[in-house]
């Protein structure tokens, strides 16, 4: 399959290794991977802050960049959810509404693409380490991703999986929320950090680097030894 990569801005600039890992995994599985270089952002930050006109402008650039793509894969539940679930509302009544709807249907979160679209569990990965999983909110509640990552991690050689309690409570990032209400955001992050520490895991994995960024920021200040890692990085490891 010819896959168009959607690498969100913060992964591009802060966690490029996640994007590189996605390329490695998909090529290892025999797919052709392309990165449309005109892409910038799906528009979610502006959308979530209520600036829908600006979000729509950015989203139009996104439609341009990915026009004609057969399958769009992004290592981010939150960005994928924006395209799949919210482009409909953003483009309602707009001349490009149908185009946006068609693009939404072809957009996938990375782990979900492997599990539900390609039907895979074992992608030939090896990663020795004790790993716990953070169910990122958008992936979980907007895209219904819960079983997939657990199955994928379960097939990774050498990996020992442990559930944290709770695994599905918000990490507190929430985009601009983390800067607008930093104390509440950190309070939620601290609760997540405690759950990670209590699980005894060496690594906390997730499908969203935005959550991992928040979690890492808090774990570091707590002097925790637990490290963040994206699902793609684990699956790329051999």
């Amino acid at each position, binding site marked *: 399959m010819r896959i168009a990569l959607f690498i969100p801005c913060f992964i591009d*600039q*802060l*966690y490029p290794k996640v994007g590189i890992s996605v390329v490695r995994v998909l090529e290892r599985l025999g797919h052709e991977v392309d990165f449309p*270089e005109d892409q910038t952002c799906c528009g979610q930050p*502006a959308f979530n802050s209520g600036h829908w006109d600006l979000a729509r402008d950015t989203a139009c650039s996104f439609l341009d960049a990915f026009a004609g793509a057969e399958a769009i894969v992004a290592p981010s539940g939150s960005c994928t959810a924006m395209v799949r679930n919210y482009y409909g509302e953003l483009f309602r009544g707009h001349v490009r509404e149908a185009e946006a709807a068609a693009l939404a249907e072809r957009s996938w979160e990375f782990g979900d693409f492997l599990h539900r679209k390609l039907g895979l569990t074992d992608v030939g990965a090896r990663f020795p380490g004790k790993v716990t999983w953070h169910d990122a909110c958008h992936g979980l*509640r907007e895209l219904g991703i819960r079983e997939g990552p657990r199955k994928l991690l379960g097939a990774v050689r050498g990996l020992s999986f442990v559930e944290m309690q709770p695994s599905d409570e918000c990490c507190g990032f929430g985009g601009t*929320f983390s800067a607008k*209400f*930093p104390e509440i955001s*950190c309070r939620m992050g601290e609760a997540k950090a405690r759950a990670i520490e209590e699980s005894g895991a060496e690594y906390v994995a997730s499908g969203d680097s935005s959550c991992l960024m928040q979690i890492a920021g808090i774990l570091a200040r707590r002097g925790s030894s637990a490290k963040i890692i994206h699902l793609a990085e684990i699956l790329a490891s051999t």
Partner: protein
Amino acid sequence: MSSVSRFVAESRRRMADAHERATVLKATATYTSKVAETKASFLDWATGRRQLHQRKWEAIHRLDFHLETFERRATARGARVHWAEDAAQACEIILEICHRTGAQKAVKSKSMITEEIHLNAALEEHGIAVVESDLGEYIAQIRGEPPYHIVTPVMQLTKEEIAATFHEKLGAPRDATAEDLTKTARRVLREVFLAADVGVTGANFLVAETGMIAITENEGNARLVSTLPRVHIAVAGLEKVVPRLEDLAGFLPMLAVSGTGQQLTGYNTLLGGPRQQGETDGPEEMHVILLDNGRTRLLADAEQREALHCIRCGACLNVCPVFKGVGGFSYDTTYQGPIGSVITPHFRGLREWKHLSYASSLCGACSEVCPVHIDLHQHLLRNRRNAVDAGHVGAVEWIAFRFWAWAMRSPFAYELAARAGRIAQRLSRLLGVEGSLLDPARAWTARRAAPTLAPESFREWWRKRKASERKPS
């Protein structure tokens, strides 16, 4: 102090109160496990939610018709139906009834809408003593505090704190057990029930078909409040009407599960008018006050009117990490948590109350649990959009997003901004600015380590790879 400053200050204070946080977390954890257990006894909870949504949709979309049907049927049995445009008018109507009937003592059962209209203050101002009979509300009342949560008025108090309150205000022993405390309250409230001239309740549902009001409760106090005193006044929001009696077959169990994890609440009552000819129980007069107070404004909003589906179960509060973190008092509104954040701007004004819609990570846990399938987190988002469209957003943010939109317009602008950011971060770290009071990213770096902008971005890696692939081997 503006509402948002009050919110930030109060939530800061409450977040630092480890005892309150622990008590609330314990209560919500107990709730969560109970609810999970009880939900498992349903064949198809998901379909149930959609059905309730549909029934409420039906009610809301012909609200005038159903309310008029209710009025006709209720009046036919001798109840008197009043229409109040706002809180002041509702209080006026209630005071008029009290004055006409010579009422001096009022007893109330739990009703959030009476909090909304500040009824107790209005009654007391006019020399009418009012006592809350729901145990939680009674405790809140003698402490001089508003309810903390729309269903659990004193969720933040431990048994020891309640005992201390009873000791201070009622002379109960310091080491009273839960049973002792209940017995004390019962003893006090029995006198109140018997002496009251007027009983004020809310209504969980208004049944149009039969002209009845439905009240669900666990303590039985609402039954006493609505039947012992000579006069019964029920206050309900316009949106509480349901078309048919059989609608309750879905609403009552799902409200009970979502509210407290019970299969059904202890007492479920339908009241169809005052004491009729030949009956021995019931008030001489029954009044139902239908309150607008901003609800028709929300009804007029086609996109957001589903917020009127709310059956006030409290589930969204119990799963909200923000509510659990800052507590009910921080909101400073009648309705807290996600539903409160959604509807308060519509009832009290967007400019002053938009901050509650921003104080959310949009995690969606609220929408997930809502038994009437309100997309609560999406309404928070729409409130934000409405705030921006109405020009309520500050200049700094407006400019910041325009700069952001410029950067995202083309890969060239985006990479330029990224490169500038890399330099800025390196400089900031070199000069020791990061994490200090001068750091523009202080909102993040005050409490969290900052991520490092990668020396080589993904797209730079990709371009390099593409270039090396093109080179002849």
